[in-house]
């Protein structure tokens, strides 16, 4: 194992990208993820890569499109309003089946909102904030180390499925410093793909497009993408089950909230309340079955989220009425304390099932 480094989440994600072979980064500053930009501007030239500050998030996502089209490993990052501006581009990248990694360090919204942590872009990330039938693969780390691991995984998944992958964090995740280790450097040469653009030398020319004026042809394309995502749904569900087995109340939470929930669970168990945590790591594909199993076993569920009830809907879809699902949230940049979660779990535990 390599030495531990003490890094902020934003820096850890940036370094992880580089370790994963990312040599191209296009982005536009926005709090609370500026450190990703800044780290990349410092580090990429050192490894022979290119950092380019785009004129806007719209330009950044299409520069990412352009670089992705060559088959290179490429990343962009932003925070909520900037990610909204990328929605058209994200839809295009998904439609063109180009691999790339997009980081959203969510902040309070809507509008300019605030700069503090939020999880209110869940729908946008998982259901598709852009137009048309597509999905991002979405990974939500809850520690800096996991941010490293998932960022590296994100590049592999992007290549595997030729689909954009989002790493979804929040202001907290980006600013917090923790020890992180980097797995041994991945290979940095990636085999030429059969579709990438680099000049039609000794081969028929390649074409990256998303327009299919004939509806039946477009329908086929849509279904092919859906099929591919279906594979991801089968293979790429990731979650953590934390003290769920004997739990009476299972907290559903991801990212920052999930790690706060872990503290709450320790405290609750000291108070004699058997609490556990089911933590989606992949938000798309969502661990529906795992939640369904929890529901079937008769445990109560409390979803805690920094939004007014977004992942909550996916949990409800999973649970399908089989158990009661309570909901607790703080929004607008307020992070729920473990004391609040303790209180809510206790309430849930006391409710008649």
């Amino acid at each position, binding site marked *: 194992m390599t030495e531990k480094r003490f890094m902020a989440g934003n820096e850890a994600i940036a370094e992880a990208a580089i370790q994963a072979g990312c040599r191209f980064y296009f982005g536009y500053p926005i709090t609370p993820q500026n450190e990703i930009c800044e780290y990349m501007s410092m580090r990429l030239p050192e490894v022979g890569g290119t950092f380019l500050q785009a004129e806007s998030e719209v330009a950044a996502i299409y520069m990412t499109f352009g670089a992705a089209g060559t088959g290179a490993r490429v990343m962009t990052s932003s925070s909520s309003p900037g990610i909204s501006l990328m929605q058209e581009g994200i839809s295009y990248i998904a439609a063109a089946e180009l691999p790339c990694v997009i980081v959203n360090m969510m902040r309070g919204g809507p509008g300019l909102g605030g700069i*503090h942590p939020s999880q209110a872009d869940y729908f946008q990330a998982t259901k598709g904030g852009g137009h048309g039938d597509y999905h991002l693969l979405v990974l939500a780390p809850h520690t800096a180390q996991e941010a490293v691991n998932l960022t590296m995984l994100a590049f592999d998944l992007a290549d595997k499925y030729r689909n954009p992958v989002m790493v979804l964090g929040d202001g*907290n995740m980006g600013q917090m*410093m*923790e020890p992180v280790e980097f797995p041994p450097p991945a290979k940095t040469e990636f085999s030429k793909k059969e579709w990438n653009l680099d000049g039609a030398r000794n081969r028929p020319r390649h074409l990256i497009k998303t327009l299919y004026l004939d509806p039946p042809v477009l329908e086929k394309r849509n279904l092919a993408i859906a099929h591919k995502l279906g594979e991801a749904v089968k293979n790429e569900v990731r979650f953590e089950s934390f003290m769920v087995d004997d739990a009476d109340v299972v907290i559903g939470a991801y990212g920052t909230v999930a790690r706060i929930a*872990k*503290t709450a669970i*320790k405290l609750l168990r000291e108070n004699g309340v058997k609490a556990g945590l089911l933590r989606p790591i992949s938000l798309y594909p969502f661990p529906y079955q795992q939640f369904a199993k929890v529901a079937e076993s008769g445990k109560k569920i409390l979803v805690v989220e920094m939004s007014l009830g977004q992942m909550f809907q996916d949990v409800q879809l999973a649970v399908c009425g089989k158990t009661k699902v309570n909901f607790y949230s703080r929004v607008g940049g307020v992070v729920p*304390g*473990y004391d609040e979660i303790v209180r809510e779990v206790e309430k849930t535990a006391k409710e008649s099932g």
Partner: protein
Amino acid sequence: MEKGKVKGIYEDVIMAGFGGQGLMFIGKLLAYSAMKEGKHVTWIPSYGPEMRGGTANCTVVVSDEEIGSPLIPRPRAVIVMNNPSIEAFEPKLQSDGLLLANSSFVTRSATRKDVQATFIPANEIASRVGNEKAANMVMLGAYVACTNIVSKESINKGLEELFGAKREFLEANMLAFEEGMKFVQEKCLKTK
């Protein structure tokens, strides 16, 4: 987390003061040094747009187990270096918690009776040993002396690694740190 509820090594602390007082730095130093001792650590700043004159704070957690919440609604210790900070964080302290105030800036005394308050003229002490800017290190010394959460040697090494070569600068800082330790060792009871 609540004292007594956690087994093993565990400490959390909020450090707060004006922008330029170096609280972010001592927070990082503490976490870094503890990390080097093999402990789990988190450091999290309050953050905001670049606006001067505000009060900034950070939270450090050190533990021998994986750390859940990096944010601490009811901290075990607070280091406050100005008046707004004592207003903000004294009420949040746990019962029996540690309140370390820099009396060079904090002009009122503690209002709570259920906490262990120590007032440290950190700027005066730092000036005395040669560098008023090292008042933050005095406060960190005091904190480390009270909690023993990390060794003096680790802090020393951490300082070197974070700061690099500037020898004299390091010395002034370590001196200040030691003065901080001494101050509380004389004045207050160790909590652990």
